[in-house]
C-alpha cells in the first residue's frame, strides 16, 4: 500500500508535483500515467526518499521509506534514469546491493535467473542494451523479495517479447498480493498491464479510476452517419434527444447513441442511410484528450530540447500530433 497525501515538490519556482493525493492498493497492478514531465518520476523519487517533499507525505505500508530497517525487503525500485554503475559487472552490482542487507549470494543468482541474465552476469553493465539494463534493474528490485514494487517506465527499451514478459511478471506478482505501481506515458501499454489507473498532468491528479471505467468513459460512442438528407435526419434525431454534429453536407456525427438506435430512428423518419459507422475513440486519443491541458512540452509550441529522443517518446509525440489534428 502506497499512500500520498497532499504530496508537493517544488524545484525553485517550478512545481513538479502539486498536492497529489492517491492510494495504491495491494493485489493489483496500478498504472501511473501521464505525459512526459507530468511529475511521475519525481513522485516515485519522493516515495523512496531520494527527494524530500516540499509539502505533504508519501508513505509505504504506513511508514516513511527512510524509517525501514530493511528497505529492499519492503520496496523494490526500478528508476527510469538508470541507477547502475556501468563499470561493474551485473553480478558484482547486484552483490553490492544485496550485501547492504545481508541478502545471500544465492538470491543474487536467483534474480539473475529470473530476468534471464545468468549468461551475461560476468559482463560489465556498460555493454548492456537498454533492454538488458531494464532486466537488471528488475532483478535488483526483486533482490529483497519485496511486497511493494515501484517501477518507472519498466517497458522502456524492451522488445515485444520483453514487454510481454514484464506484463506477465507484474500480473503474477500482483496476484501474489504485492502492491505494484508502474509508471508509463503510453496509455495502450497501461490498458494491457494495469487494473487501476492514476493519471497525472503537470503534477496534478487528473484521474484515479479503474482501467475499465477509464476506457468506458473515454470511448464514449460517436457514430459517423452519411445520408443525402442530413438536415432532415438531424432534426429527427435532435427531436428524439440525440446530440448531433453536422460535419459536412451529407455527414454527421452522433454521440451517446448506438448505431442501432440511429438506424431505427432514421427508418422511422424515412431517411435513407448510406453509411453508419460506430467510431471507437482510441485509448491513446482518450488519454491525450484528458491530459491535453496538462501536456507541458507539446509540439507546435516552441520546440523543447527536453523532449527525450527515445523511440517510446517518439510514439507518444506521434499520438500528441494525432490528438492535435483532431482537436
Amino acid at each position, binding site marked *: 500500500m502506497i499512500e500520498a497525501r497532499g504530496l508537493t515538490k517544488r524545484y525553485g519556482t517550478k512545481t513538479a508535483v502539486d498536492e497529489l493525493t492517491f492510494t495504491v492498493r495491494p493485489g493489483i497492478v496500478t498504472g501511473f500515467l501521464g505525459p512526459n514531465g507530468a511529475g511521475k518520476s519525481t513522485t516515485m*523519487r519522493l516515495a523512496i526518499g531520494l527527494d524530500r517533499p516540499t509539502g505533504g507525505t508519501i508513505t509505504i505500508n504506513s511508514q516513511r521509506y527512510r524509517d525501514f530497517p530493511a528497505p529492499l525487503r519492503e520496496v523494490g525500485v526500478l528508476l527510469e534514469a538508470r*541507477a547502475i554503475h556501468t563499470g561493474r559487472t551485473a553480478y558484482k552490482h547486484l552483490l553490492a546491493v544485496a550485501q547492504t542487507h545481508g*541478502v545471500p549470494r544465492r538470491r543474487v543468482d536467483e534474480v539473475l535467473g529470473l530476468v534471464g541474465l545468468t549468461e551475461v552476469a560476468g559482463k560489465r553493465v556498460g555493454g548492456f542494451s537498454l533492454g538488458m539494463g531494464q532486466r537488471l534493474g528488475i532483478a535488483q528490485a526483486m533482490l529483497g523479495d519485496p511486497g511493494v514494487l515501484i517501477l518507472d517506465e519498466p517497458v522502456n527499451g524492451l522488445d515485444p517479447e520483453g514487454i510481454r514478459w514484464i506484463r506477465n511478471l507484474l500480473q503474477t506478482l500482483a496476484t501474489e498480493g504485492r502492491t505494484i505501481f508502474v509508471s508509463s506515458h503510453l496509455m495502450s501499454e497501461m490498458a494491457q498491464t494495469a487494473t487501476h489507473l492514476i493519471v497525472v498532468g503537470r503534477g496534478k491528479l487528473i484521474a484515479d479510476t479503474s482501467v475499465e471505467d477509464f476506457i468506458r468513459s473515454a470511448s464514449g460512442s460517436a457514430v459517423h452517419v452519411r445520408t443525402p438528407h442530413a438536415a432532415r435526419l438531424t432534426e429527427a434525431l435532435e427531436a428524439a434527444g440525440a446530440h448531433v454534429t453536422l460535419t459536412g453536407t451529407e455527414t454527421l456525427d452522433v454521440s451517446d447513441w448506438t448505431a442501432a438506435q440511429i438506424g431505427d430512428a432514421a427508418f422511422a423518419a424515412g431517411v435513407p442511410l448510406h453509411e453508419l459507422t460506430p467510431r471507437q475513440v482510441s485509448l491513446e486519443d482518450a488519454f491525450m484528450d484528458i491530459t491535453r491541458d496538462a501536456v507541458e512540452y507539446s509540439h507546435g509550441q516552441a520546440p523543447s530540447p527536453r523532449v527525450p529522443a527515445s523511440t517510446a517518446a517518439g510514439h507518444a509525440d506521434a499520438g500528441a500530433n494525432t490528438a492535435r489534428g483532431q482537436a
Partner: protein
Amino acid sequence: MTATTEAPGLGSRQPASVHAGAKVTIPRVLRSEWTKLTSLRSTVWTLLIALVVTIGFGCLISAIWVSEWRNASPEERATDFTDPVMASLTGAYFSQIAVGVLGVLLITGEYSTGMIRTSLGAVPHRLPVLFCKAAVFGVLSFVLALSAILVAFFAGQAILNQENLGSSIGDPHVLRVLLGGAFFVMAIGLLGLALGTLIRSTGGSIAALLGLIFVVPIITSLLPGDWDKIHKYVPDGAGEALVTIGGDPERVMSPLGGLIVLLIWLVVGLGSAAYVLIRRDA
C-alpha cells in the same frame, strides 16, 4: 537471454529463511562498499599507478642522488644530501595524484552513472554510505601506500648505500616518516572523496583537488611577509610536517601538529560532505 515467467518459485515470495535477518547494518554496508571499491577497473588502475610511481620514483631519485654525490664537491656533500629518507619517498608524493583521483571517482562515478540513487535507496540513512566508503577506501589506500613506501624505502636505501648515504629503518624518526607518508597519501585520497561528494562532477572535483594539493602551496609560498606561514596549515604543508626530518620550525610544524592539522582537514571535508549528502536531493 530468454526468461520464463512460468519458472516456479522465482517470482513467488521466498521462504522467510532466505531473508531472515535481512536489514541494513554497518558491517554489511562496509562489505558492500568493499565489493563496490574492488569491482571497478578504475580502482585497480589508479592503485597500480600509485604503486609503480611510489616505487619507481623512489628508486630513480635515489639513483640520481648516488650519481650526483659522486660528482659533488665536499661542501655540496655536506649541505645537499641531508634527508635520504625523503629521497626514496619522492614517488609517494606524486602517487597522491592517483589516490586522490580515485577518491574523487569513487563518488563522482556514482553520481555520473546514477548509481548513487541505488546506493541511497538501499541505505536511506545515507551517512553509512559515505562513512563506510571512506573507511574502506581509507584502509585500503593506507595499507597499499604503506606497502609501496616500505618497498621504495628499502630499495632506495639499498641504492643509496652504494655510497653509504642510506639510513636504516631503526634510525630516529624514520618509522614515523614512513607511516606519516602513508597517512598523507590516504588523507589526500579521502579529501578527494570529500570534494567529489561536495562537487559531484568528476572534472570539477579533480580540478579542485589538484588545486588544493598542488596550486595552493605555490600561492602560499608567494605570499609576502609572515603570510607564507599559512603554508603550514594547508594539506600539503601539514603533510610535509609528517614526513620531514629536522625541518625549519618557522616553516614546518611538528609532526604531531601536522597530523592534527590533516585530521582537521579530514573532519571538516568529510563533515561538510556528510552535511550536503543528507540535505541534498539525490
